[in-house]
């Protein structure tokens, strides 16, 4: 008889009070439970091993291509470090976006199918704690993949040409992007009934962010026809030039009147005329949501336009293209408003905070819906849902 009887006082009295510490401890308990299960599953290690081999393969191939390129063109512009770093980084980001849904998008409905979600819900855990715990666990799992690819990024750094700040920021941003995908996946897994469905939907979300944003930007730009006020361009180093009316321009700048702006190469002159232009600035936010743009744009690069430290690599080009789109025709059209636009967009006009902000808003929206679906006692249930 004594085995059962455990007077409530002894167990209840010093029960930790709720509050913030209690809330965090509940999240930690969920995270601990999830990670412990993950560490005991063999599939997890197989995935990590495949990942490691894949990233290693890409690094090796990049290295090989670079050296053979070196042999053909002596003095090939750029350093091996920068090339390896950029390609590996882009590959890691892409692959991470593909892997992250696999262990976030069934986090909650997988438990529901296994009958363990209700067991968690009947404890003192709140819906937010379940969401946070599952999210953190899947994020940590995703970060393990990022950590597994760090050695290859370090190879790039050791080859020179990449600053330590650049690599830290890029790893940080990839970590954030993995977090965004995990957050979306966990939120959808709270909403959808079946794990298969939520995994597919999460993959669709990832492709919407990576490919969909590019397509949407393209269509959006086509639909955003506008005008810009600009005058004529004069190329100082060119031979014969024709004006807007087809007449031959004088070869000497001094002979043209009304120069509004000039530098060593160009001059703008003449009256401002309304010209058709694509108002990319209206749809640049779509481009900003692209994870690659977020990562590329966040990586610091020196804001100068001539002496490029690592050869103006593709990440920098992506960032510059995105910033040009954001700046719109007022900055990208030559002689818009009579001014020579900047050839280079500095750190003062980054696009990534906007893009990341939209991504976080999207995740927050899905989480809010997921939180509603996890509330107990449940009032509404999705069709076909079984609580336990």
């Amino acid at each position, binding site marked *: *008889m004594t*085995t*059962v*009887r*455990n007077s*409530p006082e*002894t*167990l*209840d009295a*010093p*029960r*930790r009070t*709720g509050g913030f510490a*209690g809330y965090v*401890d*509940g999240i930690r*308990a969920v995270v*601990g*439970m999830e990670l*412990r*299960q993950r560490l*005991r*599953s063999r599939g997890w290690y197989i995935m990590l091993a495949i990942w490691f081999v894949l990233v290693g393969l890409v690094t090796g191939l990049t290295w090989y291509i670079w050296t053979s390129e070196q042999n053909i063109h002596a003095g090939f512009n750029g350093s091996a470090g920068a090339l390896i770093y950029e390609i590996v980084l882009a590959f890691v980001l892409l692959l991470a976006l593909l892997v992250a849904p696999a262990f976030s998008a069934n986090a909650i409905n997988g*438990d529901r199918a*296994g*009958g*363990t*979600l*209700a*067991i*968690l*819900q*009947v*404890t*003192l*855990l709140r819906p937010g704690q379940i969401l946070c715990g599952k999210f953190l666990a899947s994020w940590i799992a995703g970060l393990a993949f990022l950590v597994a690819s760090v050695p290859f990024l370090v190879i790039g750094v050791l080859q020179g040409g990449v600053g330590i700040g650049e690599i830290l920021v890029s790893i940080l941003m990839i970590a954030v992007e993995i977090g965004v995908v995990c957050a979306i996946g966990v939120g959808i897994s709270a909403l959808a009934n079946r794990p298969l469905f939520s995994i597919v939907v999460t993959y669709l979300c990832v492709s919407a962010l990576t490919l969909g944003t590019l397509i949407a930007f393209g269509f959006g730009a086509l639909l955003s026809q506008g005008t810009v006020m600009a005058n004529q361009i004069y190329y100082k180093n060119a031979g014969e030039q024709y004006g807007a009316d087809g007449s031959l321009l004088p070869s000497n700048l001094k002979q043209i009147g009304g120069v509004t702006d000039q530098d060593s190469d160009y001059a703008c002159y003449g009256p401002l005329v309304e010209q058709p232009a694509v108002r990319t600035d209206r749809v640049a936010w779509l481009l900003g949501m692209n994870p690659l743009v977020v990562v590329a744009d966040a990586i610091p690069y020196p804001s100068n336009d001539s002496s490029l430290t690592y050869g103006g690599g593709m990440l920098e080009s992506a960032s510059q293209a995105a910033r040009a789109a954001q700046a719109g025709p007022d900055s990208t059209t030559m002689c818009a408003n009579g001014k020579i636009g900047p050839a280079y967009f500095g750190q003062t006009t980054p696009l990534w905070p906007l893009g990341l902000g939209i991504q976080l808003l999207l995740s927050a929206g899905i989480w809010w819906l997921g939180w509603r679906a996890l509330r*107990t*006692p*449940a*009032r*509404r*249930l999705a*069709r076909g849902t079984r*609580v*336990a």
Partner: protein
Amino acid sequence: MSQPREAQQADAPGGVEFRGLVASGISRNFGPVRAIEYMDFSAPAGQVTALIGPNGAGKTTLLLILASLLAPDEGSVRVMGVDPVANPSAARLQIGWMPDTLGVWESLTAREILLVMGRLYRIPKSRLAARVDELLALVNLVELADQPARVLSRGQQQRLSLARALIHDPAVLLLDEPASGLDPGSRIALRRILRELAAAGKAVVVSSHVLAELDEIADRAVFVNAGRTVLAQTVDQASAQGRRYAISALDPAQLAGQLTRLGLRFEAGSGRRETVSLMLGAEPDAARLLHDLVLAGVAVTAFAPAGGALEETYMSMDAEQR
């Protein structure tokens, strides 16, 4: 979604504060399906209440509502006076729930599962390890405590599930089909544990199909069918309302003749052996009949209730439904 009914219904008839679990007038729909309609249910502290009904009668839905997982569309629930819809955390400290689907984290060990559950109920770390050991001993899983749960048999997982439901020493225990999958030894152990819990002042609710077993465990029973409460009675009442007895004798013809002489209606038994069965009133009636038969020289070899007291009610209820 309709408003829950007013709270005063939670009080027991007579207005005295009722200790235990009360659900009054609860309804719950799943889309167009009415799973529960105006069901009343109560489980007093210190007693084992059986929840009996055919498949699809709404037993599991009722238990989910009582376990604070589902909100009733109408009606109210009070767990030791706490409304789980308004204050789920306070209610959950009082509720231990063992579902019919065995949710087990397969790669975690029994001990780990209990430790995590204790943590989720915010049991202080200093006490938790001892509490877990105590429960593992109670459900007889000490030797398997550090094996991953996937190697446990269904019955062992069932016992783990019971330990999990008890981790925070709840005042109300809701068990959905706890005996299914248990071997006879574990059933007897379960019966002992549940009686001990009731003796310790807990309100224990057991849903089960094994009716004969409930006779031994339960103090009272609530019969539900098609989403409604059909009947609530104590096991003593059930025993007193008359039940079917099976009798066999060395010479069946002599037994039949004697019963006819006594003016009793009987029918051939449904069992394998050649028996007769007949309805008798309370237990004194049965004792008198046995006495009469023996005096008349009938060589009675077996004289026993044909089924449990609750089974009798269940069968009569079922007949009414048809």
